[in-house]
């Protein structure tokens, strides 16, 4: 397993926990409706900087050739998948309030950075997931 795969696994695990943690917080916010729930909502987003911090400690690949054409192709595919995931998330995050709540309603500006953080998470999640899928779950001789 090379460094990119290890980083992808770290991102997928941390961001899956983040997504899982976000649902109870949102549920509390909608059920209880306390303004404090919005401050609690910051906690799930810590998964993104946490995954970045863990990735810093993953050792670099040994050997003269760090990446070949296959690695570059996989990263390009992953970047495309990350873009598509982030774009679809943003589309749905912006469309759902408009079509469900109705065009005459207003929403708090506090939701805007939440949408932006959600888009970042979608980008990294799909990027990492595509790297794992493209390399394959079982090792094929990649060396770290």
């Amino acid at each position: 397993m090379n460094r990119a795969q290890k980083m992808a696994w770290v991102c997928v695990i941390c961001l899956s926990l983040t997504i899982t943690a976000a649902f109870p917080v949102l549920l509390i916010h909608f059920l209880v409706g306390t303004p404090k729930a919005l401050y609690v909502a910051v906690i799930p987003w810590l998964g993104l900087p946490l995954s970045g911090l863990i990735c810093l400690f993953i050792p670099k690949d040994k050997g003269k050739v760090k990446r070949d054409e296959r690695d570059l192709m996989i990263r390009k595919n992953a970047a495309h998948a990350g873009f598509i995931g982030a774009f679809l998330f943003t589309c749905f995050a912006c469309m759902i309030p408009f079509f469900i709540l109705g065009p005459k309603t207003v929403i708090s500006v506090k939701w805007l950075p939440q949408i932006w953080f959600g888009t970042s998470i979608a980008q990294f999640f799909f990027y990492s997931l595509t790297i794992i899928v493209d390399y394959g779950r079982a090792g094929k001789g990649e060396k770290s």
Partner: protein
Amino acid sequence: MNPWQRNAWISLLFFAPLFLIFGQLPILLVYLEGPSFLHLFSFACSTIVGGLLWLFLFFFNKKLKRTGTTQFDERDQLILIRATLVAYVVLWLYFIAACIYTWLSAAPERSISVNVMPMVIVGGIVIFLAVQSIATLFQYGFRRKGEIS
């Protein structure tokens, strides 16, 4: 001028302004007539297709490669990838400006109309198309270098 330069000019001069007009139309219709499935469907289709239009070039290229009649070589692919990357960076900056700047500049208890949110998406797609086209034209250069149409 090769087909990809021509596509970039068409996208810059026609698709981006057309999408700006027709992307806002369902929002206006929903505002005037109320939400309906048809409006939702047309808006979702137009935004998703408009935002992911650049992917068709890659699929198109793969299909042509199988038949052996491709006019889309490695240089063209590299230009397209770089143009998409530049457009994506600009889209991110635009999105940060739209979300974070609004949040920082407005007081936390302030609210915005939900009409603004689909407009942000439409604006983002138009900016993406325009920047991608400009970056493509800029990389090919404004003078001919032997490209054959």
